[in-house]
Structure formats: C-alpha cells, structure tokens
C-alpha cells in the first residue's frame, strides 16, 4: 500500500475548464454581471460575487423521459395511513409525489455560480468598452513603488554598489595588511640597487638575501589577500512599497428628484463605481460619502441613495453646502484627498445657479483633487440627433470648465460614454507620476 501526499500538487486543475465555460457563456455572463450591479454595493464591486445566468447556451441536452406524460408507478417509504386501493389526489407538480423521477423534471432554467474578483471586474469593464490600458490599471492588484532600502550582500550585478564595495575592500586590505604596490616597488628598487653593486660586501649580501626573502613573503601575501573579495560586495537593496500611503474620500452627490429615472440612476452608479475603483488603486484607505439632494440635501447610506425617491424641487447648492459641512466635520483637507462626483439630470432652480457656481469655484475646487460632473440623460431617441438643449446646471458649470483642470464635466446617454470622463484623470495622474 502506498500513501501519496497530493496536497502540494499544482492547484487550479479546473482553471482551464472554468475559463472555457466562461468564454462559452460570455454574453450571458456579461449580462448577468450588469444585472448584478444593481444589487451590489459600490464597495462590493471588488469582491467575488455570485451571478446567475439562463441556461440557454450552456445546457447539456440528453434524451430524457418526459416527466408529465405516460403512466408510471412509484415505490415510497413511510406509509402510515394508506391501504391497497386508496385513491389520492395527485399532488400538484404532476409527478405523483416525487418518486424516482424526482430531480429529473424539466431542469432548472437558472444556473448560479461564483465569479472570482478578477473575472467579475474583467467582465464589468469589458462591458463598458474601456481601453485596454485603463482596464489594466483598474484590474491590476495593488500598485507598488520601488524604494531604495540600504544595502545587501547579494543581488544582481546591475545593482552592485561600487563605492560601497570598494570601501569594504579597502578596509579589509588595510586590516589584513595587504602589501601595497608602492611597498613592493620600493623593495624591488632596493634589491635592484644592491644587485647592481659590482663588489657587494658580506653585509650587502646578507641584506639582499633578507630583502629577497621579504619580497617573496610580500608577494605571497598579496596573492593570498585579494584586492576585492566576494565578501566585500555590496548591492543596493530595493523594497516594494505601496504608494501613496494616504487616504481619500469620495463624495457622491446625486439629484434624486422625480425626474431621475432608473436608467439615469444606473449610469450614475456605474460612474461612481468606476471612480471608486480608480481611487482605491491610488490610496490605501478610501471612504465614500453619499449625499442626495432635492431642494434640500442630506447624507444617507448607499441603499437609500440609490433606491429611494424623493419629491421636491432641485437646489444643487444645498448638496454642495452639505458636502462642505461634512468635510469640515470629518474630512480635513489636510489629511484627506477629496474627490467629488456629482450626477444629475441637469435641472436646477435658475436662481440657485449663481450660488452653486460660487460654491463650486471658490469653496470646493480649492480643496478637492478632482471634481467630476456627470449629466445623465435618456438614450437619444432615434429621430432627434441635433444639438442638445444645454441644461440649467450645465450652463452654470460651463463657466468653471477651464479652471485648473480639476473639473471635468460630461454628458452621458449610455454606459460606454462614461469612461471618457476619466480620461483626463488618468492622463493627469501619469503626468504627475512622471514628474515625481
């Protein structure tokens, strides 16, 4: 008998099959991922998740006997009351109390399974038609920076520190009294001088012998104690460091008045999710604050934020005020990187516009890293393709537009329009990364 320990065998034997399955069911899985977004919280978008798809393309048909037609019989355990000849109403479901045919009904229509974090993000981003580069940025796990961290005794030749190595070599040579080149040359000169004498005295001969002997000793010592020894080698050491070590807060502002419909809210949610994904790549600790507003604003949890409707007018400045209050209360701009993402259908009281603009320009933009305004609207109806009516809020924000590159605004009809909003953000980031 043999006992074999297989636990150390390579893992993920089913990975290939799993990928093949996902590839085959790609379209339906992508749809399922999209659907599951509505039930997921923004923070959960990064965890693995359960999805369910219709078995359309992935069922495996076999010849089966129909569970409804024909005559059949069953043998069941646990009779308590029946006698031969009793007649019982057929239980609903048709197949007479389960019996041996149970489980071979018409098959379930749904197939549920768990997608890993990578698979989920991949499909989510693919659905948004993101450029590959951006996808890599978002799906890649933590981004690390390389930082110098002292010296080490081993490493690759390219990271050899020559000054450090030479210094070590020199001190070792000194400590072990390795004869220097000058010393030996001196000695050789003396020997040469004595040898040059035509009539050396007895004393000269003795000195010459001593000197020669000493030269041999020195030469041997020189070969024994090498100029640079492996123990002198020092390499520069590098450490990976997660960067930057800091925290950020995202303010999600949304107009929840009656004019915002499901489609618009979904677009807004995707926008917030993308911002969240992006920001978590850059900061170790990320918090989200949800502020909804009609003509007054309040901070709410995510559930309420997306799924409850309020009635009332629309006063955007109320949300900005609320945000400033929260910032003052909890998120000092000195300690936090602040991001603002605002979604709205563009309605605002006309007379609120000046105040909104002022708040945005003078109070908020100076303290945030980035502010984005997303104007969501219904998909354009096929007939009307002309210039869109500039909404109230759009006109107001348009004045701020250029200031400092911190503010981005975009109109969005469908999912794939959302990504370009971030393009500025990405390019700006890589520029600063180069600079540092």
């Amino acid at each position, binding site marked *: *008998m043999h*006992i074999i320990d297989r636990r150390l065998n390579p893992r993920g034997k089913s990975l*290939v099959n799993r990928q093949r399955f996902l*590839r085959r069911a790609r379209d339906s899985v992508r749809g399922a991922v999209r659907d599951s977004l509505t039930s997921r919280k923004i923070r959960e978008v990064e965890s693995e998740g359960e999805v369910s798809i219709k078995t359309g393309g992935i069922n495996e048909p076999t*010849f089966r006997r*129909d569970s409804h037609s024909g005559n059949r019989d069953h043998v*069941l355990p646990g009779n308590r009351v029946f006698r031969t000849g009793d007649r019982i109403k057929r239980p609903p479901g048709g197949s007479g*109390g389960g019996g041996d045919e149970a489980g071979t009904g018409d098959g379930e229509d749904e197939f549920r*399974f768990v997608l890993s974090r990578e698979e989920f993000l991949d499909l989510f981003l693919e659905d948004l038609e993101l450029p590959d580069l951006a996808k890599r940025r978002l799906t890649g796990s933590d981004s690390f920076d390389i930082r110098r961290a002292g010296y080490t005794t081993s490493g690759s030749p390219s990271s050899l520190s020559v000054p450090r190595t030479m210094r070590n070599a020199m001190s070792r040579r000194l400590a072990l009294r390795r004869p220097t080149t000058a010393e030996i040359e001196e000695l050789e000169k003396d020997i040469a001088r004595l040898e040059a004498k035509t009539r050396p005295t007895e004393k000269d001969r003795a000195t010459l012998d001593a000197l020669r002997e000493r030269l041999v000793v020195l030469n041997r010592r020189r070969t024994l104690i090498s100029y640079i020894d492996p123990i002198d080698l020092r390499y520069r050491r590098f450490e990976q460091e997660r960067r930057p070590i800091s925290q950020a807060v995202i303010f999600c502002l949304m107009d929840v008045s009656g004019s915002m419909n499901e489609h618009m809210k979904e677009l807004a949610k995707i926008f917030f999710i993308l911002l969240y994904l992006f920001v978590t790549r850059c900061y170790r600790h990320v918090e989200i604050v949800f502020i909804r507003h009609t003509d007054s604003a309040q901070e709410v949890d995510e559930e309420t934020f997306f799924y409850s409707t309020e009635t009332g007018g629309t006063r955007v400045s109320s949300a900005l005020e609320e945000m400033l209050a929260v910032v003052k209360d909890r998120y000092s701009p000195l300690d936090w990187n602040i991001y603002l993402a605002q979604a709205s259908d563009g309605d605002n009281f006309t007379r609120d516009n000046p105040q909104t603009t002022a708040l945005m320009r003078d109070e908020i933009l100076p303290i945030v890293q980035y502010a984005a305004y997303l104007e969501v609207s219904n998909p354009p109806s096929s007939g009307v393709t002309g210039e869109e009516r500039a909404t109230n809020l759009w006109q107001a924000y348009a004045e701020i537009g250029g200031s400092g590159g911190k503010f981005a605004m975009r109109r969005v009809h469908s999912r794939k329009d959302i990504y370009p909003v971030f393009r500025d953000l990405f390019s700006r980031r890589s520029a600063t990364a180069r600079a540092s």
Partner: protein
Amino acid sequence: MNAPASTLLYSGSDWNFDTLQRIYDACETIAIGELDLNVYPNRIEVITSEQMLDAYASTGMPIFYKHWSFGKQFLANDLLYRKGLRGLAYELVINSDPCISYVMEENSATMQTLVIAHAAFGHNHFFKNNYVFRQWTDAEGILDYLEFARHYIARCEERHGQAEVERVLDSAHALMQQGIHRYPRAAPLNLNAERRREEERRAYEESNYNALWRTLPNKKPTHRESRDMRQKSLGLPQENLLYFLEKSAPRLRGWQREILRIVRLIAQYFYPQRQTKVMNEGCAVWVHYNILKRLHETGQITEGAFLEFLHSHSNVLYQPTYDSGHYSGHNPYALGFGIMEDIERICRDPSDEDRRWFAEFAGCGDPLNVLKDAWANYRDESFIAQFLSPHLIRKWRLFKLDDREKDDEVEVAAIHDEQGYQEIRRTLARHHDVAGIDPDIQIVDVDFDSDRKLMLEHNVRDRVLLQREEARQVLQHLADLWGYQVILTEVDAADRKTLNSYAIDPRPGIFY
C-alpha cells in the same frame, strides 16, 4: 473499560502519515484476515478540499480531457460548497488497479479510518469481484487510457482548433448515454473461424446442388428483403448510437471518429457504476461498519472515536419518508446496507416467513458467504428482486403508487402486506434497472438508396415520451454528426402505434 493505550491506533482527531499507515494495517488485518475480502492493491492519496472539487468536476477521475461542461460542473459544486449547502464527500475511489482512494486532509483520524475501510476495502472488493465490472471495465488500463484520451484531444485541439473539437465533444456528450453496449455480444469471429465457416457453407451448397434451381427466373429482392440485407450489413438495429456513428457515419473524419470512440468508451466504463450504485455503496458501508465494529471490540479505537463514527455512519444511512419534506428518492446507502444487514439476520436468526422466502440460505449461519456471492453475481435490479424481504418492506413501510395519465388521482396499488410484497419488490427492482430507466432508442434503418436518412425508433414504455425540447436538441447533434436528415419515431412498445416523431436536418457549417 478503556483499552490499554498501547493497542490504540490513535487518540484525538489528529493524524499523520504514520497514523494512516497504522490504521490501514489494522483495517487490512480485519478485511483480509477475518472478512477474507479480495481486493486490488491500494493507493491512498491525501488531497485538499479544492482538489476534491477539481476531482468532482472531472467525474472523479484524476486525468481527464478539457471541456467547458466540466468547468460548469466545477462552478456549480463550488457554489454549493461555499454556501455550505453541501459538504464534500469524505472520499472518492477509482475503479483501477491499483485502486486509488482520495482522502481529504480535513478528515479527523476516525473519519480516515472510516474512509479507508469504506473505500480501500469495501468499494475495492466490489470493483474486483462484481461480474458487471469484470465484464465491462478494464481496471488495469483505465488510467492509461484516460491519459491517452487527454493527449489525443489536446493534440486535436492544436491541429484542428479548439472550437472544432469542442463541437464534436458537445455532440458526443449529448449522445453519451446512448453510447453504451448494454448487452455483451458474441465475440467477433477471427479470420480462421470465418474461413472455416465459409468452406463449410460452400461444401454444403455443393452437396445440395441442383441444376433445376438455375432455371428459375431471377427476381429482384423485395423491399423487405433488401431492408433485411442492409440491416444485417450495418449491424442494425443498433442501440449504441455513438458506436454506429463512429463506424458508419459517412462524412466524419478520422479524428472525429476517434473522439466519439473516446467518449463512448468512457461512458461504457461508467456504466457498471450506474447499474450497481445500491450494491456498491451497500457493500462499502457493510464492510466499513464491520471493520470499525471489530476495531472497537479489540480496543484499537476509543469509545469517543466509535461514537464519532456511529454519528457519521447513521447520517449516511438517513432515509427520509415520502412525506417528510426532504424525500428525494431512495438513499442507495440505506437501501443497500439495509438489505445486506437483513441477509445477515436471515442467515443467523430466520423467522418462518424468511424460511419460506429464502429457503436456499435462511439459517445457514454463514452470512459472509451469502453476501460475497451476492456482491459477485448480482446488480441492483437482480439484487433487490432477489433479496428484498417482507421484513424490510414492513420495516420501511414501503408502498406502491400507480399514476395513470388519464386519471386525476393516483392509486395505492400495494402496501406492506401479504398481497403487496411481490409487487413492491418487483417494482422497486425495475426502478433500479438502468436499461429500464434510460429511454430505449435504436437506429433501425438507413435509407441508402436516396438521401441517406437515418431512421431511429424510441420504444415507448408506459406511454412515457421523450422530453420534447431536449430530444430535439440531441437529435440536432445527431444530425450534425450524421450529416443528413435524422428521423426519430416514438413507437408504443405494446401496440406498435406511432405516438410522435421528429425529423431534423443537419445545420450546415457545423461539421461539413
């Protein structure tokens, strides 16, 4: 009461490889020495739960070719496992020589003992001795064959593209249950015997030669005769659809035929397992129960360990009643073990009724021999038909329901009384006959004269037709492989009336 520590195999729930070896040796002493089992050499492999899920996905085999359906299987099991809806099996055993048993690292020492006794001796003995396995499977060759299959299919993917190979596999999998030879056939004649037969036939013709026959006018063979000849040359009717396609489909390429063959041989390999589920599990449970009982009696495991064992043992044997809300068919473990325990009782302490029903062995006092004979020479259907006793029918309170298509009500046809025993036993046996559960579908004819239509027949029993939508999909696969139209007629087995029929054309561009 506690046995001296020195005889204990282990204490506590931790184990290491020495413990496993000791446990195995102790089990072997009892299984071989006392129960006199006949087993393949054993190999025990320790795996993690993730590897167990992997193994589930490839139908328990350590080596398997790649296909998306296994990924689907994996994801489904994975979800159930994560949600805690289903625990993993403690073991998995492969019918091969040497017999490989997987045990999970999470198992406690007691569970490992149970698993070794159950798989390495119980299942192993059954695999080696049962006639269905001996007749149909080649334990020695299976691992090599799977290795070959995996390589072959991987090579095909390289050469012909993954999508092409996947299409063949999809189609083959759909027909997998129809890729089985259900009855052993006469061995093909070898060439020498063939020649001898031919000579004998000629000699007979010469001895009976009569010139008068030549004067009869030559007449064309009738429709019926030509059909008979065609059927004979093609080996029809044929129930093994994959075999027929492999040998006779006109347009398949060599590698496609080989893939059909691989799928068909693997289906054939698993066929005995489907036929002997009840017996196989019953045998394994009986063996582990007796081994652990002996270990306990001889003081090799503690009282605590024995209680832990009894706990999982009785979990395995749980059989909910039909109205309990979680009834989902007969638990094969409970059914098999129940009957085997009952055989033991009948051998040792029979009642008058048992003597009447089981005259051959009631009171013989040697249950082990009776059981071994049953394990070797029966499959589920015949086993139940032979050994299910009135005592058990009463104990389980079995009853039979008749459910007729035209009635609104179901009728209780038999209960656990003198009139009902035979009926219940016969019906339960029939329900464990795989050939009776699977629909009986055969290829009956090919229209070679005109458009190469392939004609199939479903012999409908009890007026239970095929599930329409799926039948259509499977026939589509069949038509794709065959390359021409396929017609399936559902014919009532009793009065030969046609109940339903399908005609499916191949989709262009799938294979041709």
